[in-house]
């Protein structure tokens, strides 16, 4: 009986100590882990969509709240500012919309006038060889310089974006993601500047 009690006590103490140490390490490494994740996963996209900048957009990132979703939880957005010699020139943030097979995540760069400086598709599950071709520069380059207007639509709807042939739904998905992002831009601009 004494053995049994000892076993239980010893194992409990060891597990508790382990849990305590791990939760401490988890907290201590939280910020650098988040930074590294953004650095290696997001930075290539951010670099592609922002004009020349001299700061580290990931280090300078700001998280802002944009209203509430259906469940009443605040919607958070992480904004990556591009600064040239300390002056804010453009911002980048992620947006998404539904494509043909699932969500398409797009990184969007916008200068302070609300003009797109570039877009880059981060993740998608579109059909290889068809919808997946929306990641190609031939398609994404068309967005540069556009604003939230009639031009920002596929040509079939009177816009300036040539959809990837055979992949209208995927192309429209990207356009929708970009439009979603631009719609909240005035609100974001107010917050960051």
């Amino acid at each position, binding site marked *: 009986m004494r053995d049994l009690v000892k076993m239980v006590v010893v194992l409990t103490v060891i597990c508790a100590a382990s849990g305590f140490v791990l939760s401490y*390490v988890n907290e201590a490494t939280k910020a650098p882990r988040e930074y*590294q994740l953004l650095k290696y996963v997001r930075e290539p996209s951010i670099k592609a969509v922002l004009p020349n900048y001299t700061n580290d957009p990931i280090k300078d990132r700001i998280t802002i709240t944009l209203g509430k979703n259906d469940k009443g939880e605040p919607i958070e957005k992480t904004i990556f500012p591009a600064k040239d010699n300390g002056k804010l020139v453009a911002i980048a943030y992620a947006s998404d919309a539904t494509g043909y097979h699932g969500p398409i995540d797009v990184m969007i760069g916008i200068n302070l006038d609300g003009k797109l400086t570039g877009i880059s598709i981060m993740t998608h599950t579109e059909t290889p060889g068809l919808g997946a071709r929306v990641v190609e520069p031939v398609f994404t380059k068309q967005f540069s310089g556009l604003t939230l207007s009639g031009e920002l639509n596929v040509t079939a709807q009177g816009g300036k974006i040539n959809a990837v042939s055979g992949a209208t739904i995927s192309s429209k998905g990207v356009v929708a993601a970009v439009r979603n992002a631009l719609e909240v831009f005035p609100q974001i601009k107010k917050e960051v500047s």
Partner: protein
Amino acid sequence: MSVAKVFTRGLWQEIPPFRLVLGLCPTLAVTTAAKNGLGMGLATTFVLVCSNVIVSLLRKAIPGKVRIAAFIVVIASFVVIVELVMQAYFYPLYKILGIFIPLIVVNCIILGRAEAFASKNTIVPSAADGLGMGLGFTLSLTFLGGVREIFGNGTFFGHAIMGEAFQPFSILLKAPGAFICLGVILGVMNLISAKK
């Protein structure tokens, strides 16, 4: 046995993957480049030293019947620490080693040393044993990774060293290459030992 003897034992006489033939899973899987082998080896060394120290500290408190469970909790905790720290400061390496970092938990060397050595010895020899075995493991992995990288890719730690005309043996970077290299190294080591 002196502390120095305990330490150096892991470097040749009982060098883990080649002599004890333990911990082969990471040895075969991650050694496609010298850098990966080194990173994996150092991560394992850290876990090995720390778990040996803790196990040796607690050896009198842990009842024999639950010792394995207790050792595993200690080892798993250090593995998670390594994983979090790597993710925070060495993200590219963390991505390459991937699933093999959490799998350090089930590396036979670590539980083996805890059970066979640390649970019967005081702290200093246990730490020395962990360090020796860990460094032996690191050396082996780096060496194996180096051989595979040099002949399989023509580079060493990412630097091209074989010249333009070199045609890499790309099979060495695949799974069979790992077995071939390991076999050749084991054979050469046995040859050297047999001559002595």
